[in-house]
């Protein structure tokens, strides 16, 4: 104590003329040492501590790794397309095998057993606890939020630097699926366009010819009107379409309704009114009856939009008997609107890289392998229900054999190519599903309202934009 006091006195006189905080007994001894340091030393200590805290902030899980030869992958089990699939992990395992053969000193691991419905939560937990895998599969619904929160690495630099990588090898819409606000955050892995399922049995019964690939709304409406019968008995009930909503109509009529993401929407862009009118007309055919998916399964509806993966799943032998077995069915492109083309949505499963990875080069080469290697991509056609995102793989003769096979229907590779090429990326932004519900509500009340469509549009435009503002 006595010694301290002596030291303290000396320090105060020497360094700041006794103007500094008088050191008191409640300070731990280590602080005494700090207070009697030279003034400059104290300033330097402050700066060092500040940078130390910044350094701690940048530490990722990888920083503590003993060795840098373990690449982790975030993977979910089962099919992305919500159909039963016995080949869980098959493609990933093969990709890992190929990768480890090429880079023998790197080990690729993943946590198995995470099912698709838990995958979002699992991934978010890993992100929050700072242990995000180096490479992750990204569900379509999660992509924008992951990109926005900064969990994904911007791949632009890697894409431009890697000369062996050719982004034009992908379907352009599939490539765009990995883009967020002009930056590439993910590579496409597997995709499936939306197609129009057609009940051929009804068409044959009514003597209507199967439409061509380039069919339009007037063909569509004519067929629906002709087949619709609303008789008393259950057998006589027959409807035109189910599940053809405003989203399908907007896509077909060239309306990019969510062009401005979650900032604002505009009901007054050209094409919206026609789309709504079509839906209104289609609804009027049913005299107030809500046609459901079950009606289609039972064979009472001609058209239903469905993803290509459903076609793959139920055309194959094993699942054929489970659904849609009571009637003949086939696929078509979506009908074109007066201002648009035969455009449909393309659902794409992507893979991205953790923003905090310290194995960037390794992660990139793995992503590149699984996303663009023809052998791996071919396995998608073989073991999954989607399409390869690589054009040449999907459009090869071998693929054609696997996809269309021996089926005698009108659906062919030309139609598939057209559907995929003409596709658009499904809207993805924060709060997208909620906004879609709002638009659903708006469309329903516009159609059911007494006033004319234009007036209702203005009212609902304001309503939805108000809602969007609460999101931001």
């Amino acid at each position, binding site marked *: 104590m006595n010694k301290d006091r002596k030291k303290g006195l000396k320090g105060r006189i020497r360094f*700041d003329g006794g103007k500094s*905080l*008088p050191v008191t007994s409640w300070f731990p001894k280590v602080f005494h040492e700090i207070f009697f340091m030279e003034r400059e030393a*104290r300033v330097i200590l402050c700066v060092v501590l500040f940078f130390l805290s910044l350094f701690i902030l940048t530490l990722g899980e990888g920083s503590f790794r003993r060795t840098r030869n373990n690449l982790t992958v975030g993977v979910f089990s089962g099919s992305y397309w919500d159909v039963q699939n016995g080949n869980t992990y098959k493609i990933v395992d093969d990709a890992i095998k190929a990768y480890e053969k090429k880079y023998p000193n790197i080990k690729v691991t993943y946590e198995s057993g995470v099912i698709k419905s838990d995958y979002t939560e699992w991934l978010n937990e890993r*992100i929050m606890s700072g242990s995000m895998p180096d490479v992750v599969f990204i569900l379509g619904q999660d992509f924008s939020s992951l990109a926005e*929160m900064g969990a994904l690495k911007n791949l632009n630099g890697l894409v431009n630097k890697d000369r062996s990588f050719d982004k034009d090898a992908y379907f352009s819409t599939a490539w765009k699926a990995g883009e967020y606000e002009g930056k590439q955050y993910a590579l496409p892995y597997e995709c499936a366009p939306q197609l129009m399922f057609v009940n051929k049995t009804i068409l044959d019964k009514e003597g209507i010819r199967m439409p061509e690939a380039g069919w339009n709304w007037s063909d569509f409406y004519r067929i629906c009107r002709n087949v619709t019968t609303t008789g008393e008995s259950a057998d006589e009930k027959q409807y035109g379409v189910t599940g053809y909503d405003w989203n399908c109509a907007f896509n077909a009529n060239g309306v990019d309704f969510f062009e401005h993401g979650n900032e604002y929407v505009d009901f007054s862009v050209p094409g919206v009114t026609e789309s709504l009118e079509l839906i209104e007309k289609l609804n009027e055919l049913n005299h107030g009856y809500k046609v459901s998916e079950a009606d289609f399964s039972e064979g009472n509806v001609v058209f239903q939009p469905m993803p290509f993966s459903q076609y793959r799943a139920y055309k194959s032998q094993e699942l054929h008997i489970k659904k849609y077995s009571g009637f003949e069915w086939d696929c078509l492109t979506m009908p074109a609107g007066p201002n648009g083309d035969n455009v449909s949505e393309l659902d794409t499963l992507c893979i991205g890289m953790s923003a905090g990875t310290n194995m960037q080069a390794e992660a990139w080469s793995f992503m590149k392998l699984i996303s663009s290697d023809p052998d791996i991509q071919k396995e998608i056609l073989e073991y999954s229900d989607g399409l390869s995102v690589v054009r040449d793989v999907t459009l090869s003769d071998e693929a054609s054999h696997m996809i269309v096979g021996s089926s005698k229907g009108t659906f062919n590779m030309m139609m598939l190519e057209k559907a995929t090429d003409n596709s658009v990326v499904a809207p993805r932004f924060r709060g997208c599903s909620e906004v879609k519900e709002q638009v659903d509500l708006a469309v329903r009340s516009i159609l059911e309202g007494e006033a004319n469509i234009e007036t209702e549009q203005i009212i609902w435009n304001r309503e939805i934009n108000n809602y969007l503002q609460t999101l931001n």
Partner: protein
Amino acid sequence: MWIAGSDGRLPDNQILVRMPEFFMRILLMLNFLIIITMSAFMVRSLLGTVHSGEAAAFLEAAGHVPIEAGKIPVMVVILYSSLVILTTVICNNHWELFAKACGECILVAAISVTLGMGYTGAMFLVIADVIRYKIDWKERALYIVSVSMLYIIMNTEMVWKSLNIIPVDVYWTYYSIDFRGLLTAGFSTLKLINIFVFIFYVVIIALAQMSEADRIYSLNLKLQAANSQLEKYAKESAHNAEIQERNRLAREIHDTIGHSLTGIVTGIEASIMLMDIDAGAAKKQMQAIEEVARAGITDVRQSVRALRPDVLENNKLEDALKKIVNDMRASTGVDIKYENLAHLEGMSEDEEDTVYRIFQESITNSIRHGKATRIECFMRREENYLHITISDNGIGCKDVTQGFGLHHMQERLNLLQGELNYSGENGFVVDVKIPVRWGKEKWND
């Protein structure tokens, strides 16, 4: 820390210095408490969120990846330590103070960002640290305004959004509604206490400075009063001295010259009458009158002693002579040479006065009447005389008539039985011999 002096009381200035320091330390402790508690609850929230499978909901609400749970308290403690150390650094100028304030703001901002802007009150620490410097209140106001602006900006929602900061409220969503209310209320209370302590601190600093200013002002007033009193006293005493001196002179004249003259006049009257009757008696009478006259001279000399030149009153003769030479040289620009080979110690006061007057008068005459540009003063001892020669290169004077100056000199010398010679042929030369009544031993050595 609040140790009283040996008499059990603190001196005023110590209280003023220590009180703000005391509150500053309370502020530092309180801020640490708030920061560490908040980071603890944030960590609990993050770990709990992951544990209970609400990570997706959390990230959806947050919109950004939060800082990992373990890092938050470590970073906050490191940043806060840095801040505390920085507050102990004393600045010597405005630049240093400005740099320090900026550094503190950066640290506080970093802490606030780490805590999801849940606590920005550490900004008060920066203000508290700055205003304890004794700078202008205007400059202080400038600092306070700038830091407050920063504080307001940091509390603006727009800023969080653009900086991708997850607001602390998102962390609190983990807790149940009831607990969340408790948590928010608890932190609000702590923040309020922090503000109260800060206000107290500012008031005490202001009071301390005001009382200091008051003290200086009252001391100044007292000083002014004392000064004018002194001036009055000085004037009075000068006046008194004048009156005293006049009275003394009057008394002296009356006692000495008046006395002697009366005696002389009476004696001479008697002598006149005796002259015809008895010449011998008259002669005797005359001798008596001479005695009286001589006594009178002695008396006058004694009175005049009080009227010596000031310079001699305070200095030795040698120094006074040098001073007069130097002063004349400086004021007139005439080249005056002064050389003294004699010892001047042991001279009586009237002798010193005479020598001084001779120098003064001769130099003045040379300059005034002779228009001399060069004067030589030489003083030496020759046997039992002090011999002074003062010569110049001026226009001199063919027919010297004794003016008052030379006459006065002559009179003074006569009293000492000295000898005065002068000549105006070649410039003007004054030659004085004064019999020495002092320091004979020295000469004999």
